[in-house]
């Protein structure tokens, strides 16, 4: 039943006033593929990611998820979002709920799951992200890394067919980055389709099937990590990589 490609961008264009944030983006993401988007800030990579679950509107072109046009008038956006998991830079856990409640809210309210089933599933997801003991904690009692792992579990609780990661480690202290990347690696190993905006080059090299380099709202260059990191063709790509790797 899997639709391949699972995500398709067709000539996607978006403007803020006169400024073009996305220019004629076309790309396909296959089922199970791991794609990492890199590029300087303001290049449109987060915006592109957010078009996939319609957190962003577009001005021209089309985004398809499992063959369904995301921005079409008749599309049930909530049903779509339920299948597309998203992890944001700033965790955005619900501060008034415990970890368990954070994870079970959407399964219960959107999918109508029973409390017991949802709880059980949430606990197994917490196990999977390595913090089963934090089920009853409130977000403020967790470290940044733990909060982000809860956010991943929260997204996974909806059984998404694809996961979007929007700079998931940029708001974290350095010592917490690895614990989040480890969870993401596990997820990749299990075959999840992943679209990741990130500056973690090591992670991209290790996990990505393809790397997209974005600049000024366009995909400047795409290729396997080996191709892109070892033999970047474009001048902008070279400049960007030399700056990032020098760090």
């Amino acid at each position, binding site marked *: 039943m899997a639709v391949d490609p699972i995500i398709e961008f067709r000539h996607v264009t978006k403007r803020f006033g006169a400024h073009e944030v996305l220019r004629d983006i076309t790309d396909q993401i296959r089922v199970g593929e791991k794609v990492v988007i890199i590029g300087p800030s303001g290049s449109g990579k987060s915006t592109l990611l957010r078009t996939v*679950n319609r*957190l*962003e509107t577009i001005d021209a072109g089309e985004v398809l998820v499992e063959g369904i046009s995301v921005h079409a008038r008749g599309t049930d956006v909530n049903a*779509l979002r339920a299948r597309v998991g998203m992890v*944001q830079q*700033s965790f955005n856990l619900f*501060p008034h709920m415990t970890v368990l409640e954070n994870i079970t809210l959407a399964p219960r309210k959107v999918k109508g799951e029973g409390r017991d089933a949802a709880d059980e599933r949430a606990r197994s997801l917490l196990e999977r992200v390595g913090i089963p003991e934090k089920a009853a904690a409130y*977000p403020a009692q967790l470290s940044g890394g733990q909060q982000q792992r809860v956010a991943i579990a929260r997204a996974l609780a909806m059984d998404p067919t694809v996961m979007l990661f929007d700079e998931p480690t940029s708001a974290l202290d350095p010592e917490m980055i690895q614990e989040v990347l480890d969870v993401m690696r596990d997820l990749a190993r299990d075959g999840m389709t992943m679209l990741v905006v990130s500056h973690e080059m090591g992670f991209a090299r290790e996990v990505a099937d393809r790397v997209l380099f974005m600049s000024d709202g366009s995909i400047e260059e795409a290729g396997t990590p080996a191709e892109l990191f070892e033999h970047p063709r474009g001048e902008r790509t070279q400049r960007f990589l030399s700056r990032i790797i020098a760090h």
Partner: protein
Amino acid sequence: MSDILMVGAGWEPFTRWAIWRFLFDGLVLALEMAAISMLLSMLVGVVMAVARLARPRIIRWPAMVYVETFRAMPLLLLIFFVFFGSARTPLKIGPVTAVVIALTLYNSAVVAEIIRAGILSISRGVIEASRALGLSYLQSMTYVAIPIALRRMAPGVVSQLITLFKDTSLASVLSILELSRSARVIYDTPTYGNPVEVLTVVAAMYFIPSYALSLLAQRLEAGPERRAILAADTATATIAPAPASRPE
């Protein structure tokens, strides 16, 4: 010792049930006026807070004038204005109603600001996260936005309720037999003449509910989820600005 120190009837009247009964009636009236005014203030406060957050100036500005004016006015002046003012118009308002109206004018303005701050405290990222999980607009308001805002407002509203309860004492200027007036009636009675004792007792009768409420406000202020709500606020401020377009 008090027999030597105090003049007048001293503590003796407090051995009689009728005196306690009289004071308790006053306390009940004070609590009733506070409760009704608070309910009305919440209703008006919600309207004013939402109006102040509205886009059109024609809605925003009158609400701003209402809030800024009434919150900056002495309550006693408002009581005089409503009571003596209404006496000059065909619709004559009774003293208790006048006090409730004046209390509502002042407190609704304060409550409106508390509610507005609560609404403004909901970070966009959290709403977006709930929408990204597939929650509908209504669900994300019901389960995420409104609970966060209510928790944020709770301590402020409870503190304001304390102020409101204490402020019912101003009703005594219109000779309403609430707690303060009842106290005065007792110690002004020539055979009693014991303001020290009566005011001490009455102070305690104000103190107990107020202090209980202040403990409640403190509890609401503390707690892990409360800290989280405050922390969520600062987190959004330090993290990169969200893109300009709104989630649908």
